[in-house]
């Protein structure tokens, strides 16, 4: 393990940072080191397991998709940033029908269906819509909640959730610009109750890209790189807490139920340090390493399809607007704090992926827009359906923290020889500065030596013992050397479809 020692020495030299290049080089050497089993002729691709189907959008709908909701009778509602809501009947069928249900709304970024009403979150309010005369167009646009301000700044987006178990809608309100909150509750999460109250619930929001739930009903939203957010992240919202950006602190005066204003975070610190100082502060569940897995985290959805969508039942999927991808998260709770890993899942969506929604048939609808923020998918907008082909991908299903390392769970048994070889893996830790400035470079980077890799008897799990685990650090694990064992339709000797995961370690289990 001379390599790691060298790496450490280089890193710890005072003064000028010279080690980055050296370390990257070392890692790349490690990455290519394992002796590979014979590769099959055709390398599997994401499309073999999950195929993207375009929905044909009527030419008169400029459908910059902001929100999706599944309706009764095999219909999906699609809302656009230009303020339209379209209802598509039999969207996966041969001849879907499109009806414009509403127009003239203010940038709809949330849709939820309840009791015959379609609830739409617009910038300034939550409204509910209904077609009472049966002509297919909503004629009631009733304001349900508007207990927050809009100043006229384009940044002041409002994203709305589906209904939670108590019948609440959760709304996350972007700050005024990146740094400040000019009107009430910008930079907050609010709950809109069934009786129409709007309750300030969580402070610290910066610039959300979507909001949803995990399968147990915990509320999750995405926030994006910027001040007090070194990189994009998936965060949990809980009443009374603070999720990182103090720009909206002044509204504690208007929210007596929240108690006193929390301690201001210290710029230039680390989130693990600030967790100790600020009791209300809840760190991100998963930090998405900037540009490695995405760079504009957006929609959130959990896989409650019980297998119709493949081997990831119960997991959370997150879109990335800039990379036009879908990312996957395996989450767990340690000491009451959620954390977990993210993995690349599917790339190649047609525009900047934003809204996501599962259909009852287990396919996932993804809507996109790239207005104002560029995306790899070049379309101005897109509405696509991601369908599990039934073929099992060889993937790291989950990554779980252990006191001395991580346990990996695979979708299909691993080849024990490669999985037990520590040279099949490479790991490092790094984090981001928690600061008032925009974003952060990667800091505190250090390798993690893998001491032992122990596959389980059934080959579905591998226990990795690892050095240098640090709280408040993202642990990158690469498994380029791990190969599949033959199982069912899955051939032997396959490399992982995605061999890297990033685990955000807030708490190391005891």
């Amino acid at each position: 393990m001379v390599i790691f020692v060298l790496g450490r020495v280089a890193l710890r030299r005072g003064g000028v940072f010279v080690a980055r290049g050296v370390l990257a080089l070392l890692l790349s050497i490690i990455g290519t080191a394992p002796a590979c089993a014979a590769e099959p002729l055709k390398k599997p691709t994401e499309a073999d397991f999950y195929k993207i189907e375009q929905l044909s959008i009527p030419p008169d709908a400029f459908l910059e998709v902001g929100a999706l909701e599944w309706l009764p009778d095999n219909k999906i509602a699609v809302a656009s940033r230009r303020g339209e809501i379209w209802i598509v009947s039999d969207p996966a069928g041969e001849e879907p029908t499109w009806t414009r249900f509403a127009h003239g709304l203010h940038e709809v970024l949330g849709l939820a269906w309840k009791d015959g009403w379609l609830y739409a979150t617009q910038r300034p309010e939550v409204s509910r819509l209904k077609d009472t005369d049966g002509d297919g167009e909503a004629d009631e646009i009733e304001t349900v909640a508007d207990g927050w301000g809009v100043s006229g700044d384009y940044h002041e987006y409002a994203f709305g959730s589906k209904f939670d178990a108590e019948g609440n809608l959760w709304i996350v309100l972007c700050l005024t610009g990146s740094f400040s909150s000019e009107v009430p509750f910008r930079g907050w999460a609010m709950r809109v109750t069934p009786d129409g109250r709007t309750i300030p619930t969580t402070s610290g929001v910066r610039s959300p890209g979507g909001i949803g739930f995990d399968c147990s009903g915990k509320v999750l939203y995405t926030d994006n790189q910027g001040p007090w957010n070194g990189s994009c992240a998936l965060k949990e919202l809980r009443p009374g807490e603070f999720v990182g950006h103090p720009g909206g602190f002044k509204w504690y005066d208007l929210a007596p139920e929240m108690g006193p204003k929390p301690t201001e975070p210290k710029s230039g610190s680390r989130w693990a340090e600030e967790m100790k100082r600020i009791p209300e502060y809840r760190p991100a569940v998963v930090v998405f390493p900037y540009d490695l897995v995405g760079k504009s985290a957006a929609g959130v959805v959990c896989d409650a399809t019980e297998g119709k969508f493949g081997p990831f039942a119960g997991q959370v999927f997150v879109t990335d607007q800039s990379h036009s991808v879908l990312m996957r998260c395996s989450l767990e709770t340690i000491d009451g704090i959620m954390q977990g890993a993210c993995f690349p899942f599917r790339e190649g969506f047609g525009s900047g992926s934003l809204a996501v929604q599962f259909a009852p048939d287990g396919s996932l609808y993804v809507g996109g827009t790239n207005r104002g923020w560029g995306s790899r998918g070049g379309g101005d907008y897109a509405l696509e359906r991601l369908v599990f082909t039934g073929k099992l991908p060889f993937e790291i299903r989950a990554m779980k923290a252990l006191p001395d390392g991580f346990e990996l769970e695979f979708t299909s048994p691993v080849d024990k020889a490669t999985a037990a070889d520590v040279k099949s893996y490479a790991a490092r830790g790094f984090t981001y500065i928690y600061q008032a400035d925009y974003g952060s470079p990667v800091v505190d980077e250090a390798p993690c030596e893998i001491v032992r890799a122990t596959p389980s008897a059934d080959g579905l799990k591998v226990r990795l013992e690892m050095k240098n685990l640090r709280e408040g650090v993202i642990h990158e694990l690469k498994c380029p050397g791990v190969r599949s064992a033959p199982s069912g339709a899955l051939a032997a000797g396959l490399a992982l479809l995605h061999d890297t995961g990033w685990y955000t370690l807030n708490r190391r289990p005891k």
Partner: protein
Amino acid sequence: MPSRSCRALLAALIVGMAAGALSAAPIVAGFERFGRHADKSIDRIEGGLLLLGELGCVNCHQAGAAAAHVIAKAGPILDRVGERIDPAWIATYLRDPAAARPGTTMPHALASLDDGARARTSQAIAHYLASTGEFSRGEFPGAQDARPRDGVPIYDRVGCRVCHGDRLSSVPHLPDQRPLGDLAAKWSPAALDAFLQNPLHTRPSSRMPGFPLDDGERRHLVAALLLPESRWGGVAEQTVAFEAKSWNQTFGALPDFAALGKPDRAGPLQGFDVEGFAGRTDGFCVQLSGFFHAPAKGRYRFDLASDDGSRLLVGGATVIDNDGVHPHSWRSGDIELDAGIHEIGVEFFEAAGQCTLELDVAAPGGSRESALAFITPSRDAKPARTSRPAPPPFAVDAGLAAEGKQAFATHGCASCHRLDGAEPVALKAADLSQLKTLAGKANAANVAGCLGQKPAAKGAPLYGLDDTQREAIGAALAFLASPAAAEAPARERAISRSLTSLNCLACHVRDGKGGAIPAVAILDDDGEPILKEPARDALFTGPIPEMGEEGRLPPTLDGVGDKLRREFLDEVLANGGVDRRATMHTLMPKWHGDVAKPLAALLADDPKTDITIPAIAGHAEAEIVDKGRDLVGSKGLGCIKCHAFAGDRGQGLGAIDMTRFPKRLRHEWYLAYVENPQRFRPGTRMPAAWPEGKVFYPDILSGDAGNQIESVWRYVSLAKPRPPVGLGNDPIELIATDKPVIYRNFIEGAGPRAIGIGFPERVNIAWDAEAFRLALVWKGSFIDARRHWSGRGEGFQPPMGDAVFNPDAGPCVAILPALDAPWPVENVRKRGGRFGGYALDGKGRPTFRWSLPAEKIAVREMIGGESVGNPLLQRTVTVERNVGALEGLVFRAAVADAIEPEPDGFWRVAGFWRVRVLGAGVGPGKVVTIDGKKELRYSVKLPHEAPVTFQEELSW
């Protein structure tokens, strides 16, 4: 000067460094930052070599071995200096340079003289220098347009503050900053303006480089540097200059003040705080009167700004008319005045929204400043600004000048300063490498000579060095005497020396040194991260926070010779940089060829990224550039979502113009950079559009990443590339065909919660869901959605059509104790009002719903009506109250200056729109006057437990 060392200590502590500066020691930025403070990243020898150049040692001493190791610096060229610099200041400066300009690198050339001789000699030299031209305290061209207030951000942002510290502080905030001293005593405004146009003209050594400011920016800067702040900010704002009267009445234009009657308030006005005076922020007008004290006869130029309208009267004549409802806007006018006292008046009104008022004046031959200091509320009072008698012109005494010329030669001034007609001085002092004997002694306090602490031996200048500087020079002298000095410095060392002596490192980083070190992962010996120096970091700002550090910190110089074409490197050093103006406040200044060319030559030898330029075989050139264009546009990779293109910022952030790439960048570097931006700029927001060679457009140019990257280069290299898709935006006019079209967005005049409706009959409304009012009505085209439907959609969009008016000033109904009682002004949301949304009828016409639960009324406003078109617009209002009948319900149809009845039952409002109200239970229309405004009101009977409905018809 112990206080300076204390403050220097404080400054040093601010940046977390150990202190060491002593009084009166010269400040050489590179030495203070890298040789004394910070991380001592240059050693004592390097620090000493730097000082030998910056202090001009090699200008007197023969350089010998030092020639290869010391970068010489000449003093300013003094040709015709008498035109530029005040001779009185020259004399003061020569008597004790470090006292007049703390931190100066000019030595005390007269230190060895006794006090009397020093006074006489400094006078003599001042007379000699004054004889080279005639000094005049004249203004610079365009001084009347220069606003010192606008010069402050220029000083703070473009880079002045990086090297000189805070504009108003004589103490540097960082140990390497050299304060400016008393510029007003030294320079005439015209001379400072001319100097800043091209400092290299008199200072080819370029330690003060030239900034590419435009004329306006430079003039504002000169004004901010020379005009005492009391004459345009701070103190001026406290001045009581006018007697004021205010009336709480709302107007759309300046009223006839004579007809207004008794004012609501009268008394002295502080500065221009008219809001404070009137005690309200909207709906008032003021009349100011005072006495203008003209210091001299001549033409006076006035500048008047206001929001809303204003007028300036001098001696009863209107000099500036700035009337009407408008945002803060300036107008100017001038008038010929005799010296003495003149009546001056300002009239002003504020309708609604922002409220501002400012008045500047430029006296004949003077620069623009606040007029307040020239004005008094009574004829007898003394103005704050007394006219200073012009100082008598400096009379050159020929005898003294001749003596001065002699002294200029004797004291070796010409060794550093070029001056036409002065005797050139041959290098006469000892070769530096022969001074190694000094090396050991240099530390000794009693050395008499240039390095000493005491007045030097006869004729030698005194530098006032401190121990650290002396030690460093000692080490450098020892090095120069050693065999090691025979070797020429390695390239990196030579670069480092240039960057340090020219102080490029004040802004830029190279090899981990200099700039505002960004928060890269520097770990100290304990593995703890070291963050950037906060004091220095704050010097660099940018206009676009979303750009992060790339929109703030000047770019790294690591590998700059790989990145930039040699021609561009030369160009940017010679002319300064303009490419980052849209995204960064700091400007790259220009440097004299004598220093820039050798540096460019050194940097150009940076190791080059080697990459094969793709040939793109099998594709015609026309296809290649077309595909490049597709990739750049919004339907491709959307490069223009951040980058400007051919001068068009389009929807982008204004990041570097893509058509500048081929002029700036080495082709190979571009290819490698785009392939993996993070490799060159860790943390950059520039995305990897071809991550690890992956291609998102497999159909373009054989799906090859290299081909595609190259195609973008070829496209942007075209002399006139066709603009990419998505760069410009066409209007998106929303047109109602058979049903009304709705547009809910930020609408100017109707607020951020506006709901716009365009009816098929080409009449349009905007309803304000924040204030529950029909905010706007207009004819013709409805609205252009381009602003909000392209790019990020910032700002408010005004109506697209014309004949716009505002029917409702607030909710259209209220419960009042009397028909003529004041309308409730409190924000309807604060009164517990709830907006209930809207319903659309079969024809798509809206009914807005709102309620005031506290007052137990619910209101519906159906807009459109059966006969849209004639009359043009109908509003049906329904008011409901579930608990009993209600007294005092009033409908307000208009608020305006003029409301006149017409024969057909309509009322004509503001001269151009007409309104009437019909319905059972609606009383006759009555015009009431409240706060000077007319309001058309109707009392409405609300029956017991039944809603009341009535119609309003609007026509225009």
